[in-house]
């Protein structure tokens, strides 16, 4: 590979994986997003990026829960009263959903890769159903996926098949559920 441009990458990927759709360039500013529809495609596209297109570095791997506004019961404490509130202003007690935004009952895993030689970035995204969010692990491609996938598993409950050591990493063992899910409700524990 000598010269790679964004349009070149889009062409190559589209030829090889016809089911991949390319998101509008404004989705993540400065990063071209490729939307995969199945786990095999997801793994295949990322492998193609790494092995054929020179995207050698995994920037990060994370996930977004598109369910809607965050559940206020997910927090332990009540919202702090604000003594500096101007007269007549209403306290913002919980986050309101945006009525014009299309929330959906899905998780979306986002993987951002870098090609340092060409100074390019690409994102591979895949939507997963809420009931059984499963995805092949990237551990065989990058070992850095180890902890990043464990974090995504811990905080959002997405299972990575083929991960050698998929267990909680950041939250304590007694925490039930996955805190970064929008419908997470905190269960009282010994510290409450």
């Amino acid at each position, binding site marked *: 590979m000598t010269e790679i441009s964004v349009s070149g990458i889009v062409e190559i990927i589209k030829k090889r994986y016809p089911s991949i759709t390319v998101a509008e360039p*404004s*989705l*993540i*500013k*400065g*990063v071209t997003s490729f939307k995969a529809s199945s786990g095999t495609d997801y793994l295949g596209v990322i492998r193609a990026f790494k092995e054929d297109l020179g995207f*050698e*570095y*995994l*920037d*990060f791997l*994370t996930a*977004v*829960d598109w369910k809607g*506004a*965050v559940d*206020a019961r*997910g*927090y332990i404490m009540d*919202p702090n009263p604000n003594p500096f509130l101007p007269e007549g202003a209403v306290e*913002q007690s*919980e*986050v*309101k*959903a*945006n009525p*014009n*935004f299309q*929330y959906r009952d899905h998780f979306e895993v*986002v993987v*951002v890769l870098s090609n*340092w030689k060409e*100074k390019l*970035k690409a994102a591979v995204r895949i939507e997963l159903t809420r009931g059984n969010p499963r995805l092949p692990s990237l551990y065989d491609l*990058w*070992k*850095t996926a*180890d*902890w*990043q996938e464990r*974090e995504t598993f811990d*905080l959002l409950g997405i299972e990575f098949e083929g991960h050698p050591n998929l267990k*909680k*990493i*950041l*939250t*304590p063992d007694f925490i039930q559920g996955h*805190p*970064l899910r929008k419908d997470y409700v905190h269960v009282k524990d010994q510290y409450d």
Partner: protein
Amino acid sequence: MIETHSSSLKTDQMFINLGPQHPSTHGVLRLGITLDGEVIVKAEPDVGYLHRGTEKLCEVRGYHHCVVVTDRWDYVSAMTNNLVFCLAAEKLMGLEIPARANYLRVAMCELNRIASHLLFFGTYGIDIGAFTPFLHAFREREMVLDLFEMVCGARMTYNYIRLGGVMADAPPGWADKTSEFLKYFKTKLREYDDLLSFNPIFLDRTKKVGIITAEQALDWGLSGPNLRGSGVSYDVRKTFPYSIYDKLDFKVCVGEAGSCWDRYYVRMREMAESVKIVEQCLAALPSGDIMAKGVAKIPTPLPGEAYAHVEGARGDLGIYLVSDGTSCPYRLHVRAPSYINLAILQEALVGLRVADMIAVLGSIDIVLGEVDR
């Protein structure tokens, strides 16, 4: 009856805990280590003791409030945390930053890099068994913190870089005091080399110890001085320039062998580069506004996503920010370099001796506030 023992005798393996409270873990980190005699056969870093769920906290706070939360990740170089969040949010909002604010931001970040690397220099010396460098490092670090105190009133958790610019202009006399410090600090850098960098005992403990090859480093996603110590020339400031770094003249410091000493010495040389950058910023500091016009009190950016990343003191610090059009971020993900760098210990420690483990752990230079977030 006397049994004869051969060297091939199978001995029991022993499991020991290092931490969570241990002076050389630089915070609350537990390392579960399986030993065969003196040699490590398995290492399992256990993190999460400082997990405060800041990513979730940001989901119920306005954008201005989130800047305060960012200070608590890498509290040793909080300016870069402020900067990266502001860059991501400004991308979402499409704000233009005034030139003076940009120069002040970069000057602060580089001063913070010096302060952070000085902390590393001091504590790494203690890890290895040299106490004196710590006193020297903290003497100079105080001066940097004094400069921060002058400009924003805080010595930690600055909350100085805000959406659209910076909180306050540099007070009168700040620039002079900074140049004075830089001039003084350049002589000190040579002193550090005499004191620690080329000390024969220090060299014995760190050179050829804990070697991380370039392939390993890329595989494990290392960034910052840890990656450059392995000979990979990648610096976000050069490869994906942000703010005004494309206008500044500085070198990317790269090590050779990937040993503890290489990682250490990359940081020492980076301090000299940071001095150069701050000098350029002071020389070219334009006059004008320090805050963009029309920054909303309660910003509600249009639905969209942004990714911004900067070269923090510990590596490639990134923020992935999603907005659904409300006044709070819908999702915020921190690409925390310490967290990603720490994972390599699972591989890098195997086969080393216990005493070398401390040297390797110190050379990775983690801040647990950022690891656990």
